[in-house]
């Protein structure tokens, strides 16, 4: 199958399939698709070695729009489909596209186990805090009190926070970005692709039809500098339009402080995405706008750890080393046999 030829230089349009994109006009998904098409040509991976696997939901239409291999599977199961694929074919670059309902509700179990196995998969969760495809029910990330068709008096389910879950499963790469923050999004996707192991990326995505403005605080150009915090490895956590605010640790808890007035950069929390302990990343994942914190974006955690897709194939090599390649004749005659003349 391997055909030796110099890799052609690909453009974003080379990754577009011939299918019309059918998201609602103005949907945040368009921007994520555009950034993906921009990033893929920079990775040096031939199109035929890239596979997109999705579940069900608006975001899960994604594979149809990519001129790569793809499967639009069933609700919540994309991580499992991708796991089977990647176990057999560690040579492929496999992306899992999911949403807050698909990944955290019906597919929560698969997501959790997929992350803990740490196969080299890239999971992108489009978080719009609503069920879009089924026309507007509250999702597992909808805030308490959210009024929707299925929660006319307000949602009473305590929401899940995707990154807290990923970190709880000891994900080796955890990041967050925002659909409209295109440069940041592209950089984040690229880093996810380059990570060896399961990369989990949450993207704040606007569903302008059923949950318009859910992330406005983090996207609005007037407020975003105060409501988000861009994480940079080894750097102090500073934010604000005037870069005059920071995050300091007070005991076990983070707090927002103003720089100056006796507080210097050295007093702030420094980001360490390579920390072997997930504690810092978890703490960051719990900083919420509604609690008066800026919400971190960027890479929370990026560590090296053994990969299932490598280990499972290594075991085959080890077994062959120890027992020799499988020999049917030998297998059939193993143990006690007798012969009838």
């Amino acid at each position, binding site marked *: 199958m391997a055909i030796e030829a110099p890799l052609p230089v690909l453009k974003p349009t080379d990754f577009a399939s011939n299918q019309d994109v059918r998201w609602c006009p103005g949907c945040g998904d368009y921007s994520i698709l555009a950034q993906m098409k921009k990033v893929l040509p920079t990775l040096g991976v031939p199109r*035929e070695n890239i596979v997109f696997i999705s579940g069900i939901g608006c975001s899960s239409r994604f594979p149809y729009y990519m001129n790569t291999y793809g499967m639009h599977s069933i*609700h919540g199961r994309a991580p499992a489909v991708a796991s089977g694929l990647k176990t*057999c*074919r560690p040579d492929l670059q496999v992306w899992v596209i999911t949403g807050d309902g698909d990944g955290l509700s019906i597919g929560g179990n698969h997501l959790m186990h997929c992350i803990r196995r740490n196969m080299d998969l890239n999971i992108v969760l489009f978080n719009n805090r609503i069920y879009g495809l089924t026309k507007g029910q509250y999702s597992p990330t909808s805030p308490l009190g959210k009024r929707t068709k299925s929660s006319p008096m307000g949602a009473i389910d305590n929401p899940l926070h995707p990154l807290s879950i990923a970190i709880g499963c000891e994900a080796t790469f955890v990041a967050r970005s925002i659909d409209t923050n295109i440069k940041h999004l592209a950089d984040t996707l690229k880093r996810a692709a380059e990570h060896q192991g399961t990369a989990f990326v949450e993207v704040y995505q606007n569903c302008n039809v059923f949950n318009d403005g859910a992330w406005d605080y983090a996207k609005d150009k007037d407020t975003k500098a105060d409501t988000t915090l861009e994480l940079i490895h080894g750097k102090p956590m500073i934010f604000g339009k005037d870069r005059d605010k920071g995050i300091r640790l007070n005991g076990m808890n983070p707090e927002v402080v103003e720089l100056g007035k006796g507080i210097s950069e050295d007093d702030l929390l420094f980001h360490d995405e390579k920390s072997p302990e997930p504690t810092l990343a978890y703490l960051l994942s719990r900083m919420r706008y509604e609690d008066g914190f800026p919400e971190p974006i960027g890479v929370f955690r990026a560590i090296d750890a053994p990969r299932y897709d490598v280990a499972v194939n290594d075991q085959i090599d080890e077994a062959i080393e120890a027992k020799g390649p499988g020999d049917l004749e030998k297998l059939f005659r193993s143990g006690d046999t007798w*012969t009838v003349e």
Partner: protein
Amino acid sequence: MSTVASKQVSQLEDATVRFCGDSGDGMQLAGTQLTNTSALAGNDIATFPDFPAEIRAPRGTKAGVSGFQIHFSSTEIFTPGDTVDALVAMNPAALVTNLQDLREGGVLIVNKDAFDKKGLEQAGYTDDPTEDGSLTGKYKFHSIDMTKLTRLAVEEYGLSMKEADRCRNFFAMGLVFWLYDRSMEPTLRFIEAKFGKKPEIAGANTAALKAGYHYGETVEAMNTQYQVAPAKLGPGTYRNIMGNEALAWGLVAAATLSKKRLFLGAYPITPASDILHELAKHKHFNVLTFQAEDEIAAMTATIGAAFAGEMAVTASSGPGIALKGEGLGLAVMTELPMVIVNVQRGGPSTGLPTKTEQADLFQAIFGRNGECPMPVIAARSPGDCFDVAQEAWRIAVRFMTPVMLLTDGYIANGSEPWRVPPLAELTPVEVKHPPGHDPSQANGNGDANGDEFLPYARDERLARPWAIPGTPGLMHRIGGLEKADGTGNVSYDPINHQHMIDTRAKKTALVAEDIPLQELDGADTGDVLVLSWGGPYGACATAVHRMQRAGKAVSHCHLRYLNPFPKNLGEILGNFKTILIPELNLGQLRTLIRAEYLIDAVGLNKVQGKPFSVAEVVEKIESLLG
């Protein structure tokens, strides 16, 4: 093998022995060892391990009774036997739950030491049956202090009381080995292999085995030894094989011969887990076992593996297959080849996990949303699992379809002699993937000629091409939404939907053109045709042979292919006055046969977690003959 001169030796055509005791008494091991030594003695064998209904039942209770029945014979046999010739009961609960199967005049051996007040109470005995004379006249009754004798035999190995008592099953084995003039050698080899690293345990088990054997040899009350001559099996090398093991080996063989790696996606479930265990042992055959987080993931990971281009298999039992239902729909829609194994157990819901049943046939054929056809085939015996596994893969590849393979708990855990097939007898399944094209030559979708690649183009069997990721130029997207014919793009067009549903149905129906014609055992016309599938094969074959020997116009037809049926089945059925369908369900095949052929078939149906006895089938046939 020498016997003490005063003992009689009696030649038998066949014998059925059952060990029963508490689940902690090692009865399965005792049965397996007797099976091995009998197989090596050249007998035909059939076994029936009967696991306790409750895995963790309190010691000494009826719910915790575990049994292992073995039928060994100098002639060809198909069942583990209806009644028992020799019963070994290690405690009162085992005696009370098993005695009814021992024939009058049979050999009854009990461990007297277990018949204490508590043991008798747990079994519901008010009087001690070993002492009230009720057993003595009716059976060749031997009440033996097995616990004491075993402790004495292993004394020198310095084991704790608990450890010493664990050797008791070896004493019982030794005694039965003497009774049927069986060699101890295979068991001695087993002890060495299993306990070699713990010399005191190995020594104690050996001592207990020999003590049991010598007890039979020397104690006067054991006055008869039985011999069962080797069976006249066809020439070849044989081994004993269990159903789940044969199935796993069949999968390994199919993968190896078709030059594929084998991927098993599985979640532990009784009675299918042994397939996962067995395959996990054979990684050097390029076997990838993926123990998934649940049945759904096992199924969908299997779909991922099929997409990847490997031989993809998932194995489970009814409740697990229920969870896989949505994934099976995706497998049908994506038209990827894979094998789904259902080792059936008693249902519905959690049902009877350790007991056998055949009530998942409807589930196999219909258990999905939408018109969702899939070929279904079934194994008939432990050894047959080997062949059926390969056949499932052959159909899957040739028709690009998931194939459902049914076995059941009875087949999965039962064993029989299996002729080791010479490799030349095995037919490799040829797998083709469409070749890619040089990416520098063209840009965009296209095959080697630069034409647009059509993932849902079809060959003469209506199978689509199996283009796998990594192939340049054949990039395509598949999924669960309805496909446009040819391109595979999403299509909501009504006419296309009708066309695709018709095509998937037709493709499944075309499998009938690719499988052997149905064979018949007996004359092709007559009064009664017994039509069976799956595990009841043995009981039906034996019953029909018995009727044929008595001059009755009875024939037997055993189905391997359940969807679609073989092309000539209707014709066969039309030539008999009555069609009898024995099934361990309420009549699922019967319903299908009635619907398909408008034939008013008669059922013999039982759902007791147990296989049919030959007598049950014979009785039913006789009642139909009038």
